[in-house]
């Protein structure tokens, strides 16, 4: 079990390490629950990592630690060589809900992180960049529209722009498309791949969907509950760019099956 937690040399060869987790653990003192135990993980530049696991496996705890929202109980958490001791501007985050604010236009929503950190003037300047980002995600023409006129998929695209506007070093994605219908989700996953590739983004995706994880990721981290830990890191050696057609290929099926077997075993032990 411990061996599985270590990084494979192949993943490390991808590029320079961006995000490093070493022996990260989280114990909630109040009820002595070990939410996370001995998690070691390195995200390299431009890599896409997906995390999958049953509820209670600590993946949301892990994400919160990585986002600097809660402190770990032990271990080292470092982004671009500097320890993460709070929210940081080089961390981009996205949730299941788009969380756009209805009193701001699409563009105003996107420059919100800039407005909060650098003030209104900087936000005004960043609007040019925001318009370029909207074009990248296919929302050209919706710059000055209020969010209640956007569909669920469009709102999530705007949320992607808001995440990218600060040019973060790592993207933390917390089930970003799970609230969308399946057709929209497939489409958005392809869009996400395109956007990540075009910006050489380092992404970390938490998901409940095994096919989604296999489709998008270079490697899938399978987590196990009680205590939350890494059970296995599965390398996905499917060629890029990935297409939706690949989901019906035997290689894809085999990977899905392997991960599902791994999850089932952990869930019922």
């Amino acid at each position, binding site marked *: 079990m411990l061996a599985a937690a270590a990084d494979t040399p192949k993943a490390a060869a991808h590029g320079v390490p961006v995000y490093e987790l070493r022996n990260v653990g989280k114990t909630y003192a109040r009820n002595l629950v070990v939410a996370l135990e001995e998690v070691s993980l390195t995200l390299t530049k431009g890599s896409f990592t997906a995390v999958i696991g049953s509820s209670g496996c600590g993946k949301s705890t892990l994400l919160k630690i990585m*986002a*600097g*929202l809660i402190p770990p109980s032990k271990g080292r958490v470092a982004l671009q060589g500097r320890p993460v001791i*709070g*929210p*940081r*501007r080089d*961390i981009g*985050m996205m*949730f*299941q*809900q788009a*969380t756009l*604010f*209805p*009193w701001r236009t699409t563009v105003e929503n996107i420059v*919100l*992180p800039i*407005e*909060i*950190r650098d003030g209104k003037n900087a936000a005004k300047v960043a609007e040019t960049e925001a318009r370029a980002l909207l074009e990248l995600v296919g929302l050209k023409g919706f710059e000055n529209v*209020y969010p*209640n006129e956007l569909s669920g998929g469009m709102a999530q695209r705007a949320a992607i722009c808001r995440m990218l506007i600060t040019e973060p070093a790592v993207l933390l994605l917390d089930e970003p498309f799970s609230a969308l219908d399946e057709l929209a989700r497939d489409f958005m996953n392809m869009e996400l791949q395109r956007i990540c590739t075009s910006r050489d983004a380092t992404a970390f995706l938490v998901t409940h969907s095994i096919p989604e994880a296999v489709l998008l990721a270079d490697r899938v981290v399978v987590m196990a509950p009680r205590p939350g830990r890494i059970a296995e890191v599965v390398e996905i050696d499917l060629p890029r760019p990935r297409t939706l057609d690949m989901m019906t290929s035997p290689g894809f099926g085999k990977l899905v099956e392997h991960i599902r077997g791994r999850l089932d075993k952990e869930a019922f032990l």
Partner: protein
Amino acid sequence: MSNAEQTTPTDDGYEETVWTEQVGWLDQVPRAIQMLFVFVVFVGLWDLVTRLGLVSPLILPTPGETLEDLIFVGRNLSTGGYMLVALWITLQEVFYGFLLAIAIGFTLGVIVGETAFGERAIMPYLVAIDTMPKVAFAPLFVAWLGFGIESKVALAAFIATFPIIVGTAAGLHAADANSRMLFKTMGASRMQTLIKMKLPMGLPQIFTGLKIGSVGVMAGAITGEFLGGGKGFGELIRIAASQLDTPRVFSLILYLSVVGLALYAFVSWVQRRFVFWHKERVMGGEI
């Protein structure tokens, strides 16, 4: 309700199944006519009851008498008579009372809604005061502030403050977990989170509090005049009632309700301007 079926055979020999949902005739009438209908029925019943002598005219005047008096009072108001002076005093009480209530209510609402200390240590006292019959404080306000407009402003503000506190505090709690987390990840300060997220998100609740407050402030000003003298509209009502001039009481109340309605409509209008993204679904949101 049964549906009207119209199955007409066509040339091709099949029957089209075209049918319309039936709507009751009353629901097809335009709203203005519906409202007029209710008004006519109400006034008709009122007229009938007084005409048949079922109720003494001292207790309930006829609609005709009331209308006559409405015109009289309206003339007095429009020509700048003594009633306009009284109305002006009451309007001032309402205006200052509402401003005071907004200032105190909003401040306390933010303290109670934003800080854990306020919610734990201050809110219980506010709830306790809110459950008291606030009108009972009127003699105290008169004793402290005298028979002038100040004691009426104080009572009006006192009554209107609590809905505004509750509305503001509830509004600040309206922010969902995702929005809070998002602001945290963006590194927003507490003040930024309050101003850029929690307050705008709570505006619908804050305005609900303001609307309830706007109703309370009228009640407070008039009650203050009943109990503490003064020269406002409430005093005119009190005098008319003591002289058993019921038509006058009725018409004065009607003019007051116009003022109250105008205040409520004003708050609603401001809300529609500021909270353009929120569709009001509460009854009475539109006038």
